């Protein structure tokens, strides 16, 4: 197994969480593209289509805000299908609100770190206050 390493991150919503990374250089709307009942991405043709967000560290460029983003996140959380943390490149204010309300930590990282150094399946620990993301690669 490759060695663990850390990446600098900027705290957007405080908290600590860990989980397997789900990585895509894409945007995602919780409203309309995520089914809170299953936690899956349902948008046809989306790079994460069919993937379950539950317990994952979601590494994407940004979410695309809808007024209903916090509502969908809340339903997903109550069903145990919410992501563990958001690691984004850009900040969507409605994702921020959704994370605050639902106790989900959120950080931003540089694009080349997000998509160049984190791979789907890696184990990722997010420590928002400390401003870092620790990655344990799943494969060499």
């Amino acid at each position: 197994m490759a060695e663990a390493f850390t990446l600098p991150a900027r705290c957007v919503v405080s908290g600590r969480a860990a989980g397997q990374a789900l990585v895509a250089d894409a945007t995602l709307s919780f409203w309309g593209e995520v089914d809170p009942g299953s936690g899956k991405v349902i948008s046809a043709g989306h790079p994460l289509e069919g993937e379950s967000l539950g317990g994952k560290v979601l590494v994407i460029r940004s979410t695309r805000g809808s007024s209903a983003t916090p509502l969908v996140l809340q339903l997903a959380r109550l069903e145990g299908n919410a992501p563990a943390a958001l690691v984004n490149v850009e900040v969507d204010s409605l994702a921020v609100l959704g994370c605050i309300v639902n106790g989900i930590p959120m950080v931003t990282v540089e694009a080349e770190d997000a998509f160049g150094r984190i791979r789907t399946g890696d184990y990722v620990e997010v420590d928002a206050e400390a401003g870092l993301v620790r990655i344990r690669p799943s494969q060499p």
Partner: protein
Amino acid sequence: MELTPEQQAVLDGSRGPYMAQCMRWLVEWGRAMGARRLVRVDNTHCLLPVPNKVADGASAETIRRYVDNLRAAAREPVAPGCYATLHTAFVTLDGLDVPENDPAQAKLQRELGELAARSGFIPTYTCAPYLVGNVPLKGEICAWTESSAVVYANSILGARTTRHGTESALAASLTGWTPEFGVLLDENRRGTLRVEVSAELRNPTDWGALGYFTGRIAGLGIPVFNGLRRPSQDEAKQLCAALATSGGVTMCHIAGITPEAPTLEAAFHGRVPEEFVTFSEKELRETYASLRSFASGEVDSVILGCPHASIREIARIAALLDGRRVAPGIRLWVDTARITKGGADAMGYTAVIERAGGRLLCDTCPTNIRIPARRIVTDGFKQAHYARGMTGAEVIVAPTEACIRAAVAGRWPGG
């Protein structure tokens, strides 16, 4: 962020735990978004929907806890002087002969609306509050949910609202405060993308095409349109809705027309960028084609009124349908606010539309209740975009008259 003693007291629990939580949401959201203070707000538009099909497959316990959270908000009194309207629900309160409109959830929504009304909310259940009396003035600070309405308020009315979500709009309504960031501040209302329009926009749906095209390019930016005539209210509605559908746009300017863009220079706060994007007849045609998922043949649903139809649109639809008959098996729905339908009932438009085989759908929209449509023709780019993504239906966007022709014929003729 600096809080006044009054704000700090609410945060510390002077008005009870729910209000403290509201204040915490606003403060933490503001801090994360770089706000330095909370400002007074006395105009809000809030989400308070029971989940219905949005949480399909969720447990009864999840629904109960979620609705309990909404009830906690609806029980608190709206801040004195605050005009607080409600966004669309995920059910219609009318009986509706599709299994997707769960009667138990409709009952829950009615109870929630009644509770909210006693607290001072006005249960308008619409995505277009500016059509039913909530029309903020230039410079008025608002806290609105519904991205299409946010773009309309900022751009067409010159009011000021960031894009709010469920809890922030409720918290703003109850506390009377909202964090000051984004387009609440002058410097963040400056245009970022110049769009030169040479296409002739003939109807509201054409304006939707311009919005849908531009939203994709603008992302989170502020487009400035040059070369446009003054839009009608219905045209402006389509433009704003489509901008917020394909992009994350919060506002736009129309040079020479909208309140903060007396000139192209003013829209850019001085220096007009040399580079621009062109919207010509070619882009207009291509934008329609980009959302078209079938060429011709039978359709099952014709959806008008996204965002919710104005009384003028309903009058026009009634005139187009007068003496005609919707083809058997076709669902022709005109989505609108209950307030507007009340007018349409009194003026006789509803009767004409129903005689032709259509219906007015209130409080919600077909996508929100996930109607089982396979092939939809609609005059709204937003409706087409979400119907395709959320219900998997095939869609065609076309001007209202062509939609009505399709409803009568029962098929899309092609072309």
